[in-house]
């Protein structure tokens, strides 16, 4: 008898088809297409101004592409959904209410969906190396602490996709190690992660796949390394 093999097609978590973004006549992204399968850590690197942050914002639904389609968890962003479902985001400098403590800030944001409680918030704050009982207002936090709190906020609602724009910037060595360990653990739990960093070495260390973004185009390696 002939052996029959069946392959189950794995649906990509993120799919971009011919995505371009033009802002005030300037092309930031041009005809970008790629897919991210589940439970992968994918990195985007590139020089300042290459378009890697914009790509993340387009996937997150924060800006809509001028052309092309962005599909996340099977839904086209901007048509079937305004924002991707089950997605945690750290993009730009996290904006917290500076007069409140870190925990209060997260509790306030969590109160919108009311899906998680104090226990989960405490856990996620501890996970990123902060003290959930720290009563100081966010204005007294260092840049690195605010960055950690931003990561905690991205993680707190149990996302299945994480979009992280330079998550280790402003972090000390200990902070970077914590974030790398957290990302690896999340990957083991089946969470898909897309992150950017100007540091190609960091991405090679932590990611399954790394893309190089240059002038709004996507490639596998920086030109000098090809």
């Amino acid at each position, binding site marked *: 008898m002939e052996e029959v093999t069946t392959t189950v097609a794995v649906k990509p978590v993120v799919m971009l088809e011919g995505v371009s973004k033009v*802002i*005030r006549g*300037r092309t*930031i992204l041009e005809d970008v297409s790629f897919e991210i399968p589940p439970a992968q850590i994918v990195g985007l690197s590139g020089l*300042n*101004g*290459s*378009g890697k*942050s*914009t790509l993340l*914002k387009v996937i*997150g*639904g*924060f*800006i*809509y592409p001028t052309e092309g389609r962005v599909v996340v968890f099977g839904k086209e962003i*901007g048509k079937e959904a*305004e*924002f991707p479902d089950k*997605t945690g*985001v750290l*993009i*730009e400098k*996290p*904006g*917290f*209410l500076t*007069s409140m403590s870190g925990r209060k800030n997260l509790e*306030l*944001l969590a*109160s*919108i*969906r*009311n899906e998680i409680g104090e226990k989960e918030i405490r856990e996620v704050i501890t996970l990123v190396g902060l003290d959930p009982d720290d009563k100081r207002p966010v204005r007294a936090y260092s840049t690195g602490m605010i960055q950690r709190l931003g990561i905690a*906020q991205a993680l707190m*609602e149990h996302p299945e996709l994480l979009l992280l724009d330079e998550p280790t910037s402003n972090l000390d060595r200990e902070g970077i190690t914590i974030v790398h360990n957290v990302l690896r653990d999340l990957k083991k739990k089946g969470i898909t992660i897309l992150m950017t960093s100007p540091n190609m070495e960091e991405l090679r260390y932590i990611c399954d796949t790394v893309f190089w973004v240059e002038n709004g185009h996507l490639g596998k390696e920086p030109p000098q390394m090809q």
Partner: protein
Amino acid sequence: MGNVPFSRVIRLNVTTAFRWKSLLWTVVLFAVIGLFGVYEVVPYPTALSENVWDVLFVTFSGPGLVNDSLFEFVHWFLPYLFFFYLFGNIAEENLSQRGVSLIPLIGSRRKWWLGEVVTLLILSFFYVVTGVATILIVSRCFLPWSANLSPFLLSRGIWQAIPKDLTVAMLLLRWIFPLFFGTLVAVSFLQMALALQWRNAFLSFIAASAMMILSWLFGIRHPSVVRWLPGSQSMLLRHTFLEPQVRGFSLAWSLGYNAVIILAVLAVSFIYVRRIDIVKEISEIHKEA
């Protein structure tokens, strides 16, 4: 729109916009404005037995058609200026500082915007109530309480048009409160929408303030243009029943005028906000350039 209950959006917005310091400064501002009012009212002969409502009337009736007194203009303008400063920027501030975390949680740009609009409405209402209450309390320190208009108000020629049996409560309900509240809401909605369109809180603050200043200036001795100016809608002294030179400027006109502004701003902003970029376009270019 997203599935998050709207009440939670409002609760969050009010929590983030409300600051005790702002409330304190609002009370201080209206206390000073109340003292201005007392200063205006008290010098008249005591035989006219002024009362606290005179101060309220003087404060919110605005500058008259032939009045170019800077003092009276500032007396009327300060409450608006302070509100534009405190709350006219809540939407742009939320969008630029917390939009990336906040709006995906709410799940819809339009629901977020509606939340900002309702929040501004709530804040305006409490601002007006706080202002009126503070002025009455401050005035009470210097003048007696009374249920009716004082002979002081009725003695001035311009007040003869007021029906003698008009109670203070009717006066407040029918005129001062709707005019002050309606104009505050209309102009601050416009400010909030402009801040979103321009992505610049300072420029929209200047635009809203300029609208009020120009309404005062252009209206002086120009009865034919008065009723078309946005700031005039809150100037009781420029309405027809107190200023017959200005024709067709009734309470109904002002309520309608403010309602048209509010509805027009809402309609245009709801279309605009549907596909608004949550991160600033200009910062995007600079960051990527």
